[in-house]
């Protein structure tokens, strides 16, 4: 059970926060993370139209062979994406706590411009305290 990384994607599909924790995924350049986040944003939008029974949220979990992505979509369109090992069971609860840290350390920070990249010591400290090494 491991947490590999966290992405926070704004409502336009731009990556505003990215952090790696435990080893297990390829190391990418910041540009590659930006592209992947934008791609995920598009895919998520498409998946919300795929349900045969009418209204549906976008994909909540996407599983690969060696990892899975758990996506938490807020009411304002921000996406919190947690990349974890397949056996990780706490992804959803960790995302809830990350969302709380975001509501406090980012949203209540007068020096943060909404939808822009997050550069906040307060947020970093809380995320590190929450996830630790990800092991």
């Amino acid at each position, binding site marked *: 059970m491991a947490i590999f990384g966290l992405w926070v994607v704004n409502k336009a599909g731009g990556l505003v926060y990215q952090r790696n924790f435990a080893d297990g995924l390829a190391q990418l350049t910041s540009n590659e993370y930006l592209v992947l986040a934008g791609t995920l944003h598009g895919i998520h939008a498409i998946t919300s139209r795929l349900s045969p029974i009418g209204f549906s949220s976008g994909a909540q979990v996407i599983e690969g062979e060696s990892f899975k992505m758990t996506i938490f979509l807020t009411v304002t369109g921000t996406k919190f994406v947690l990349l974890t090992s397949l056996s990780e069971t706490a992804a959803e609860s960790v995302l809830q706590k990350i969302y709380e840290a975001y509501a406090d*350390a980012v949203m*209540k920070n007068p*020096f943060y411009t909404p939808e822009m990249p997050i550069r*906040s010591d307060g947020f970093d400290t809380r995320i590190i305290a929450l996830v630790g090494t990800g092991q």
Partner: protein
Amino acid sequence: MRPNIYDRNLNRTRTAEISASAFAFLFSEMVQYTQKRVSGINDLERRHVYFLSLSLSLTTHRLNTLGYRVGVRVLELMVWRAESSSKTPKREIRFLPALMSIHTQVWRAVFGRPADAIEKNMIIDNDPLLERHISVPRDFSTLSCSSFAAGIVEAVLDGLGFPARVTAHNTPTQQYPSRTTILIKLEQSVLEREQVLK
């Protein structure tokens, strides 16, 4: 017929609390409001460093002023409540007891707990409530949002008869990264009066 809020007993909300989150959002907006640029500063924008320091001192001054307006009301309410609950209400005429009452009573009334330390002319708060969710960017490291609290202290001192210049400074330690010092510079007239009263 709903009673007028101004006719309510002032002791009614004595121990009332408000949502820390609601206040944090309000204070965040206040800080952003104080950061708005002064018009006609275009020439200075070219010299970024000068503009930045001017902008920071404006923000500090505006936050201090906002705090001052709160401090005037805090003092009045505190004195009214103290008088109505004590048989022998006392008025402090020496600086040190006045400073103690700010450290304990004002801090408790405004922030819910006494300040952490007191020195000759300073009040220290290891984890200011105002700054709980604020992360100041490196460029602005000299800005302390506790200038608002400094304004409150300045108003209380003015009202008690100790005119002073009160400023807030970031004095972080390993253990307390948000540690803040409120520095009080009493006016010469007060220093002279303190000497006489010795």
